[in-house]
Structure formats: structure tokens, C-alpha cells
């Protein structure tokens, strides 16, 4: 069933693409500044040396991947409660960006793990649950590609997102529960002050970047939904249009 709010939301003008593009540009600037600070100005870590510098993208990516998937979960809940299409559009964008960020997280983690742990991958609960999260949310993207009915697609992907989100707290707390190979979450008290600013700048950079991407992606989803839910063109109009088309168009 589609409530009134769904229809009004569908008719709403999609977001102006200038705001998300500005956010993406701001994110890139922050990332450049933070990475320069982290790579060129911040001191090396005493035990790991320069290898530790990957932390300036790995940790902000981890924070933002979690944040994106929590946002996707919120969109899923809000869609189920309000039936407003805008939340489905945002859900699509958030899941896509969240999966990409989680994949990047796994890749960066592997690059860091090889010189520090001696292996590319370890079946540590935190790594395992992150990989599971990627697959579970990736499956939702596949589901969206398979289902043609927009309403079913929206409800089912919201349901699957809520179910898959049950995995996110397990990922987050697994370090504390199992006390395994992966180090515990850092806090400003456990990280040297010299490392704070590049971490913070990059964290905000990725935050601006994914916010811009989600806005752009949900704009595309809104435009696609508008064409999917648009009434079919009357047969007579279609014939006229075909008749009026130049001969070359038929080819």
C-alpha cells in the first residue's frame, strides 16, 4: 500500500546536484589536506614506523563505513514506518556507498596486516564479521537488481537491511567480546596528540564525500523511480510519435 506521503515525495523535485557536488569537492580537499599532514608532517609511530600512516585512511574509513550502514538502517526503518519514497532512495545510496567503504576497509586492513601481523588476512572475529557485513549488504544490492516492482523492492530491501544490520553491532563489539588479534578500539587518550588532526580531517573528508555520494545516488534513484511509476504513454500518442519520427530513427 502506498500512502499519500509516498506520492507527494515521488512528485517532489529531486535534490539539486550542486550541493552534493560541493560536498564531494569539500571531501576531496579535506582528504588531500589530511593525507598530506599524515604522510608528510605527522611523526612516525615508534613501533610500526611508516606502516602506521595507513591509519589516517583506515580508521576514518572504518568510522564512516559504520556510519553509512547505520544511516542505511535508519532509512530502512523510516521507510517501513512512513512509506515515503525518499527514504528508499537514500537507502539505495547508503547501501551502495556503505558496501564500497567496507570493501575499502577490508583492502586497507589487509595492506596494514601484511607487514604488522605477517598475513594478508586473519580469521579474527572482527575481520570475519566485516567481510560478512560486505556480503550481506552486497546481497541486498543484488536483491534490488532482481525485483522489478518498486514497492516490493523497497519493502524487501528495507527488511533485509534491518536483518543484516543486526550484524553491525556484532562487528563493533567483537573486539571487546573476544579480545582477539585485532587491537581494541582507540580513543583520544590512547592515541598520541600528534596523530589526532590528520585523523580528524580525513574522517570529516570521508564524511563529506559519502554524504555527497549518497545524495547524488539517491537523486538518480528518485529519477529512476519517477520513470518507473509514471503512467504509460497512451497508444495513440505512441503511434503519433512513431509516425512523426524521422526515417533514420527506426534504424
Amino acid at each position, binding site marked *: 500500500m502506498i500512502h499519500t506521503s509516498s506520492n507527494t515525495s515521488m512528485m517532489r523535485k529531486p535534490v539539486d546536484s550542486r550541493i552534493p557536488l560541493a560536498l564531494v569537492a569539500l571531501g576531496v580537499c579535506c582528504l588531500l589536506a589530511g593525507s598530506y599532514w599524515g604522510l608528510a608532517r605527522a611523526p612516525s609511530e615508534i613501533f610500526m614506523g611508516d606502516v602506521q600512516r595507513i591509519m589516517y585512511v583506515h580508521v576514518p574509513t572504518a568510522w564512516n563505513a559504520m556510519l553509512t550502514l547505520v544511516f542505511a538502517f535508519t532509512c530502512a526503518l523510516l521507510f517501513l514506518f512512513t512509506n515515503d519514497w525518499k527514504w528508499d532512495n537514500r537507502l539505495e545510496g547508503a547501501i551502495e556507498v556503505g558496501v564500497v567503504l567496507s570493501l575499502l576497509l577490508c583492502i586497507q586492513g589487509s595492506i596494514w596486516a601484511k607487514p604488522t601481523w605477517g598475513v594478508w588476512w586473519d580469521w579474527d572475529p572482527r575481520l*570475519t564479521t566485516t567481510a560478512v557485513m560486505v556480503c550481506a549488504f552486497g546481497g541486498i544490492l543484488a*536483491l534490488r537488481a532482481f525485483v522489478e516492482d518498486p514497492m516490493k523492492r523497497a*519493502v*524487501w530491501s528495507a527488511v533485509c537491511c534491518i536483518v543484516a544490520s543486526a550484524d553491525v553491532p556484532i562487528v563493533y563489539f567483537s573486539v571487546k567480546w573476544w579480545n582477539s588479534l585485532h587491537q581494541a578500539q582507540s580513543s583520544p587518550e590512547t592515541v598520541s596528540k600528534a596523530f589526532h588532526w590528520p585523523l580528524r580531517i580525513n574522517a570529516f573528508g570521508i564524511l563529506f564525500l559519502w554524504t555527497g555520494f549518497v545524495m547524488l545516488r539517491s537523486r538518480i534513484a528518485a529519477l529512476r523511480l519517477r520513470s518507473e511509476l509514471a503512467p504509460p504513454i497512451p497508444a495513440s500518442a505512441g503511434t503519433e510519435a512513431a509516425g512523426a519520427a524521422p526515417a533514420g530513427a527506426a534504424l
Partner: protein
Amino acid sequence: MSELVAAVRKDLLLHWRGRIQAVAIFAFGASALLLFSFAIGPDSLALRQYAAGFLWLGLLLASTLTLAESFEREMEEQALEGLLLLPASPTSLYYGKALANWALLALLGVALVPVMVVLYDAGTMRLLPLLGIIVLGTAGLSAPGTLYAAMTAQTRSRQTLLPLLFFPLVVPVLLAAVKATSLLILGDPMGQLRPWAMLLFLFDAIQWSLGGLLFGRVLED
């Protein structure tokens, strides 16, 4: 409560009347256990070491057949729409089907244990904890599997979609169940069984609660 009992009874009766299907699924699981051993070869020590993994993989593959079948029947002659017209809540229908699937999967797990013992020489005398792990593990397969089967049964590409959604979600179940079963077969000197059983219990509690809450929306048109 009476709705739930009636729903469980209906689904168990369906399983009983289609028991030839359950036998076929058991044969599928047993064949899978036989085929998995080809990956290792005739190394009896290695076979024993990986037996728990093979058991749960066989059970996982067989579970997709059971779960998909449980909703295929409801799609015939639009039986599901008839069920929704009954004065019963979708939550009762969900728990009825999930409980019946759980019972069937647990039975399948128990039936596959002797096959594993014979093929891999991987026995244990701790039968009650093993039964507990099978019950917890199959509960973790049944709850999300029933919810996803309800969705995928309504699509054209159901054979592809169900494993695609279901497998990644139940990886925690697979990991915990394999580890716990391995500890029972190979010994548990560090007392690690309880944390893995707790993980299974936690996953089950979350998935069974979510399934009941969300099932009504999945069936809406």
C-alpha cells in the same frame, strides 16, 4: 497462542505429508558429505579435523532446499493469499513455519551425524552438547531463512536469490556451529565451547525477534 499452535500443526502436517521430500533432502545432505571428502583425499586425520565443517556445509546447502520448498507449496493455487485471509496474524504464520522448518532442519542435522561419524571417523561421546549445538545452529538457519524464503518465493529468480541473501547472513551461525562442533569432536582443552554457543544463542535471539516483527511487511502487496 492457539493461532501459533494451529500454524505449527499445519506446517508440520505439510512436512509429514511431503516426507518423501525430507528423505530426498537427507540423501542430498549425505551425498554432499561424501563429495566434500574428495577435497581432502584419503587422509583420515585431515578428514576428522574438517568433519564439523563438512557437516554444517552439508546442512546449510540442504537447508536452502527445505526453506525454499516450504514456501513453494504456499505459492501453488495462491494458498498464501488464502492463509492471509484467515483470522490469524502474519506473526503466527511466520513462527509456525519457522518452527516447523527448525524441527525439520534439526532432525536433518541429527540424521547427518551418523553419516559424518561413518565417513570421517569423527565421533564424540558428548552427545547432549552436540544436540544442543545442532538445535541452536539450525534455529539460526531457520529464522532468517524462513523470512527470506517468503520474499524470494514471490520472485522469478528464487533459486538464485535465496542463497545470495541467506548465505552471507548465516555466516556467523556457520562459523560458530563449525567451531563448537569441532571442539566437541577434537576436544576442548581451553573451554571455548561456551562463548561459541553464546554467539549462536545471541544470533538466534536477534533473528527470531526480527523475523516475527518484519514478516507482516514482507507479505504486504
